[in-house]
């Protein structure tokens, strides 16, 4: 692939025009969108938390519903960022040609991509925050330390938005995203500690899990909601930052190749 596509991103505040456009669309459907985003994680959290939790002793140092609440906050952030970056991003890029229209104005593809990544992260942040709010209302956040989950969600959102944008750049159609969900998102849901601790898994799967971004998000969110400072926070933050930066860079190069050829 030509080296010019791998030029470093040219960052500017113009990304805000793109972000603001997406906010304006979202506001038209904000309530149903929020409720839709909240329904799925709530069902998992309450269903498993109360249903399964009743049969489990507090072996994780907390009630099972508190355990799963932390996992759900992170997984709903992951889901929301992925959906926005892939399905909605693909609609804007490929189906509606919204990005083409924007690039005819004095806005570059780099601006568009930054705007889209930050927007997907914003939307996922709102989803995660809604779950966190419900968890707090149910008394599942032990202290104000839980507020530190907010920046964790933002970072998680950016990481999954960037990874999603890579898929969007490569995708010929909506069907393509199923591969990503089947091969990446579903394994993350099951291996990264949403429903049970990763150390319950065979060694090999623990290894796989340690490379997945969701593991690192949960490793910070869970103690923070349980009034504990997470161990190796720098490592977890670093991994998420790495996924965000590398993912965005690859997504940008791939999208440049697709749209600016």
């Amino acid at each position, binding site marked *: 692939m030509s080296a*010019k596509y791998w030029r470093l991103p040219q960052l500017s505040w*113009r990304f805000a*025009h793109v972000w*603001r*456009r997406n906010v*304006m*669309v979202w506001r*038209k459907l904000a309530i149903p969108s929020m409720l839709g985003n909240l329904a799925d994680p709530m069902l998992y959290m309450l269903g498993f938390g109360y249903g399964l939790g009743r049969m489990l002793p507090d072996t994780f140092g907390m009630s099972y519903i508190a355990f799963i609440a932390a996992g759900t906050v992170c997984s709903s952030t992951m889901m929301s960022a992925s959906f926005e970056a892939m399905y909605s991003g693909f609609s804007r890029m490929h189906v*509606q*040609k*919204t990005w*083409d*229209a*924007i*690039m*005819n*104005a*004095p*806005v*570059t593809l780099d601006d568009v991509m930054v705007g889209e990544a930050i927007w997907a992260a914003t939307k996922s942040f709102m989803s995660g925050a809604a779950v966190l709010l419900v968890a707090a209302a149910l008394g599942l956040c032990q202290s104000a330390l839980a507020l530190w989950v907010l920046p964790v969600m933002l970072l998680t959102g950016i990481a999954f938005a960037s990874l999603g944008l890579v898929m969007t750049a490569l995708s010929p159609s909506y069907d393509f995203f199923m591969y990503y969900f089947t091969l990446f998102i579903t394994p993350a849901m099951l291996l990264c500690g949403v429903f049970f601790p990763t150390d319950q898994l065979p060694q090999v799967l623990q290894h796989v899990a340690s490379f997945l971004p969701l593991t690192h998000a949960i490793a910070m969110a869970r103690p923070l909601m349980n009034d504990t400072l997470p161990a190796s926070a720098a490592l977890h933050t670093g991994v998420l930052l790495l996924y965000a930066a590398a993912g965005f860079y690859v997504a940008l190069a791939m999208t440049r190749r697709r749209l*600016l*050829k």
Partner: protein
Amino acid sequence: MVYLTARSLRKSYGDHEVIAGIDLELKPGECFGLLGPNGAGKTTTLRLCLGLTDPDSGTISMFDLPVPRAARQARARAGVVPQMDNLDPDFTVRENLLVYGRYFGLGDEYINARIPALLEFAGLASRADDNIKTLSGGMKRRLTLARALINDPDLIFLDEPTTGLDPQARHLIWQRLRQLLAQGKTIFLTTHFMDEAERLCHRLAIMDRGRMIAGGSPRELVDTHIEPQVVEVFGDGAEAWAGAYGAGLSERCEKTGETVFCYARNVEPLLHDLEQRPELRYLHRPANLEDVFLRLTGRDLRD
């Protein structure tokens, strides 16, 4: 002063050279048309001029700014009407204009002050709060044109502005474009409609297979490249007639489908001969740009 200059542009995709060394220049106030069959390289030329793709070689400048390096700044003074409508389906007519103006860094107050006049221009004043999905094809085109004017551009690019529109809608677009020219705007359009080019453009270039193969005003092109009179002959036996008589009575005789085109400076002998043949129908007309176009780009179908 020159608004847009391109020199020796080349661009290939793999082994296929889509732009094979073209030069062009646009002066303020003129309407320049790029005419060519499908796949001639018209859209790629526009994309190169706007800095949306890099040439393999050659130089471009818009408003004396180098493209693609400073294309973003140059686009601040340009308006673009793309071939495919890409209005924002999530917004109303008015919101489309507002949001597009923001991409230019314009303030809401400035944009909102411009919107009524733009809606008036587009004939959409009564549709301001309607969803895009309820607009007809012609309305969408007019809104796309109004959107391209949101930043009060000096140079407007239009890529096949009337493709897919019905005759009424096309005439309305042409009228608006003439209005813009009267206001002193500069227009760069691509088209494969000869009547469009003939009506609007001061200067034309005919493009085929990535090259400019002819240029000039519509009148000059007709005068330079083709005999002034045409007789079209159709009906059973037209082809046989052409072989036996038509070719001898005209300077050039070409067949497309079931029609024979006879080109000549003096068509009296042709018409006299045809009057004796009631089985053939014919039409005598002056040569036009379409004749030039077909002569230069050939009559074979382009897909």
